[in-house]
């Protein structure tokens, strides 16, 4: 709608407030904007995290995220959605991911935002490697993320 892509994968940081403002600017049909920011924590699975490296699959990552956004727009009554995911080296408190959804009403905006995060976590080719005080390790996939994605029933045909 805005001429900008719904999906960006980038090393640079993002400005959540500016992205949220851009998504609703000049559109008086928008009554609800939901947003989520994921951040690097300094402790994960009991180890102090010094830094993190995010790897992706150029081309497929964008394609997978676009597919998730398209699915969300088909399932929920939203006008706009945007996903920005950072890759490369990040430090604790750094922003990792931003998801914004906007539409007429809050129920669909919230649901679409959480849906996108749940499927991003389980479907988009992105991998975290942590540099901890105990050494370097690849983050293991979580069963709780699979369960979160499984909450969403298959879309009605």
């Amino acid at each position: 709608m805005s001429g900008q892509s719904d999906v960006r994968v980038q090393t640079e940081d993002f400005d959540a407030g500016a992205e949220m403002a851009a998504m609703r600017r000049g559109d008086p049909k928008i009554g609800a904007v939901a947003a989520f920011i994921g951040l690097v924590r300094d402790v994960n699975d009991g180890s102090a995290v010094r830094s993190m490296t995010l790897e992706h699959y150029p081309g497929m990552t964008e394609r997978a995220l676009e597919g998730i956004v398209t699915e969300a727009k088909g399932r929920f009554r939203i006008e706009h959605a945007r996903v920005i995911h950072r890759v490369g080296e990040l430090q604790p408190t750094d922003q990792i991911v931003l998801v914004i959804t906007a539409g007429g009403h809050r129920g669909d905006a919230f649901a679409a935002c959480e849906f996108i995060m749940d499927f991003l976590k389980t479907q988009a080719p992105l991998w975290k490697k942590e540099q901890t005080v105990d050494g370097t390790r690849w983050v293991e996939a979580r069963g709780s993320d699979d369960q979160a994605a499984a909450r969403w029933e298959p879309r009605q045909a």
Partner: protein
Amino acid sequence: MVVKLLYFASLREQVGSSGESLDLPLGVASVATLREHLIARGGVWQSALAGNRALRVAVNQDLAVATTAIKEGDEVAFFPPVTGG
């Protein structure tokens, strides 16, 4: 037929390669048979791709399953379960 193979994340480190072009012998034309073909190399290939390891496979950048067919020129990527977000 020749396909393009890609390896990501911990799998890339284990096999010591981010990708290769590979000429597949006759009979290797699905995700499952390709995985077996790579395991047959032995060594790090056997340990990294062993059947009991949870791995994801994408063919031409779409998630695939064991029975997904592979054709000349396809891009086939192997990687561990994803951990972004």
